[in-house]
């Protein structure tokens, strides 16, 4: 209710991005440009996804889980991965180490995602008189999304930018990347078929994001070993 609540939800949704930028060495190396470029790539990707969804998907009246529609949505979701690949691999960045490149790209990507998907509902809804937990949950979801995106960027940089990887870890890397990339489909499956409510889904997302972050962190550290 009112602007106070809006302010609270806004700092929950967008605060971690700013904190991440300032707390990690990203701010020291001034990687803002990379993040901005990643955000622009995200915008372009979102536009392409929108056009594809509008062209190929049928809007269903009821909340029925249609496997074909969901498979189609998942395939269109891979456009996301392609966009991330472009941002990581193809764009020219200033000379920053890989360690920081994926973090900056992931940060910019996640920030653009939050702003695009969550700012408008927040502005319109959280200022009303009626109090709901929805916007707090949405902010938590934004946090989970940040962790997911950074993990995905880490795995992406492992997949595309690092040439010498231990053979045994490659399938694990790809599996984790696929799991993260198909998170939207998984959550929609949970929502429609299992009938989970929003708080449960957000809790699940947060837990999964932490697990994924941990795994990708471990993988990254493992892969860094041979170069030492």
């Amino acid at each position, binding site marked *: 209710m009112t602007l*106070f609540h809006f302010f609270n939800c806004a700092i929950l949704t967008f605060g971690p991005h700013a904190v991440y930028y300032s707390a990690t060495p990203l701010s020291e190396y001034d990687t803002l440009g990379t993040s901005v470029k990643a955000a622009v790539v995200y915008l372009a990707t979102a536009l392409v996804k929108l056009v594809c969804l509008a062209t190929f998907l049928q809007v269903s009246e009821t909340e029925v889980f249609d496997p074909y529609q969901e498979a189609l949505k998942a395939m269109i979701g891979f456009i996301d991965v392609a966009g991330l690949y472009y941002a990581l691999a193809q764009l020219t960045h200033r000379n920053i180490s890989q360690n920081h490149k994926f973090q900056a790209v992931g940060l910019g990507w996640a920030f653009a995602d939050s702003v695009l998907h969550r700012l408008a509902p927040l502005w319109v809804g959280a200022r009303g008189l009626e109090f709901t937990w929805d916007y*707090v949950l949405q902010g938590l979801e934004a946090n989970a999304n940040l962790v997911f995106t950074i993990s995905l960027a880490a795995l992406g940089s492992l997949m595309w930018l690092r040439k010498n990887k231990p053979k045994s870890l490659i399938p694990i890397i790809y599996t984790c990347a696929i799991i993260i990339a198909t998170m939207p489909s998984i959550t929609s499956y949970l929502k429609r078929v299992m009938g989970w409510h929003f708080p449960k889904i957000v809790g699940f997302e947060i837990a999964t994001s932490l697990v994924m972050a941990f795994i990708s962190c471990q993988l990254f550290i493992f892969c860094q070993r041979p170069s030492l």
Partner: protein
Amino acid sequence: MAEEKKSKQRHRVMVFESMYPILALMLILVACVELCDAATVVDVYRLIQYDISGVPFGSRFSSLNHHAASLSFQRGADLSRSVLILPLRELDIAFVQDYISQKQSLGGLLILLPQTFRPGNVGGGSLSSENDGFRSLLGQLEKLLVHGNVPFPVYFAFENEETDAMLADVKKNDALGQQATATTGGYKLVISVSEPRKIASPTITNIQGWLPGLRAEGDSSQLPTIAVVASYDTFGAAPALSVGSDSNGSGVVALLEVARLFSVLYSNPKTRGKYNLLFALTSGGPYNYEGTQKWLKSLDQRMRESIDYAICLNSVGSWDSELLIHVSKPPDNAYIKQIFEGFSNVAEDLGFQVALKHKKINISNSRVAWEHEQFSRLRVTAATISELSTPPELLENAGSLSDTRQLVNEDAIIKGVKLVAESLAKHIYGHQGKEIKIFADDSSLAVNPFYVRSWLDLLSQTPRVAPFLSKNEPLIMALKKELEDYTAEVSVQHESLDGSFTFYDSTKASLNIYQVASVTFDLLLLLVLGSYLIVLFSFLVITTRGLDDLISLFRRPPSRKVKMG
């Protein structure tokens, strides 16, 4: 290698530590998840607001923006910024009277009525004893509210699941002593409606139908006329709910059925009687039968003088074994005797009783209790057939909240129709004293119960307070069309309501119920979020730059002082 292991261990510890604020937040979430209600919207109906000769009555306010409170509030608490929610079951008349008469400040009053009183709700006559208790309580409440000047907005609403849930919540909070205010959260009731305005020139509409009798060839004298009159408008505490099934929906239905029967008889010249029939649906009934008076005055004098007698129908829907005929001429008057004899003979045949009641007209008193008194003041013989034994007070018994469809018994109306029709027919065709039943059941002139039922159902769903009916209101058009079907000539007369009654609009509104969180909750959330961000910041600094960097952020480098010195 050892350093890496240490950093990994620290990393793991940090991961677990960072989960704590998230766990805490989730615990709060799980504990408070039941507050996840969306805003609800309920239809509410406002108490009537009117003036009589400038003296204000009813509720003068309409908009509402306060927190909800229930009867379990702590004694002595200040309710001037709260809306009191009162279900009918827990109504305490004395309590409400306190608040009205002593002008104690109250933000508003919301009265919740059981669903059985909803217009259009036909079923549910099972708990009739409970309903009777409710009806009498509702009657007392209405009397109090309608005749008093209420300094706060009063609204009526029907109970449903959402209001029940909200009321239970509010009661629980009140019992704990946490009355809803800006700092403690709770429910907020908002009705945003503009200031009620005076209704500029309220009109009352009379509809009359003329069924001419058989005039013999070469006979130029005026045939005598018999009039059947009923007033169709209502008045109640909540004008949007004032459907008046018994007062006077039953009278209107009876009049329409009698008109239908006689139109069948009169359609064939062989069975047309030597009396004209005049059917009138008048308005302005609750306001001293103003419509009837104006209609009579507008009649041609010759026509008025040709009226043999007039029968007024008022509330004939819920009687059992006795119907009353009210007159203002003394009972030993020859005309009255004749009329009464005719009616009581027919009643005997039909198996019930009629009784005669005489009430003298007091010319100095402007109160007109029965419709026939307006006729008597213009020297036309008239009587009112009603189930009521005492004359209703001003603005009483004219369509109160408890006067719903369930109160009316179709059979009572049918018996009344038979009584009126047979008695009129005996008088018209000169069959007094003979054992002839013209409108017998199973004949083509039988009273049609489906007709009675359908019109009764329609009237029980249409609020009919006269100032709120426009000139071309669908109901008025429907009544006019109905009379056109049965009579030869229909005329509609529009008059304006007497200046001493003033009405104000805004009778229906939407109530928005918001669940609001208190300011302390917002502050708490801010605190939690602030600490979460700080923890996140520290965690990230420690993992990516090392613990020393974090400590160095807070400690000024001591070397500067040395340099400057």
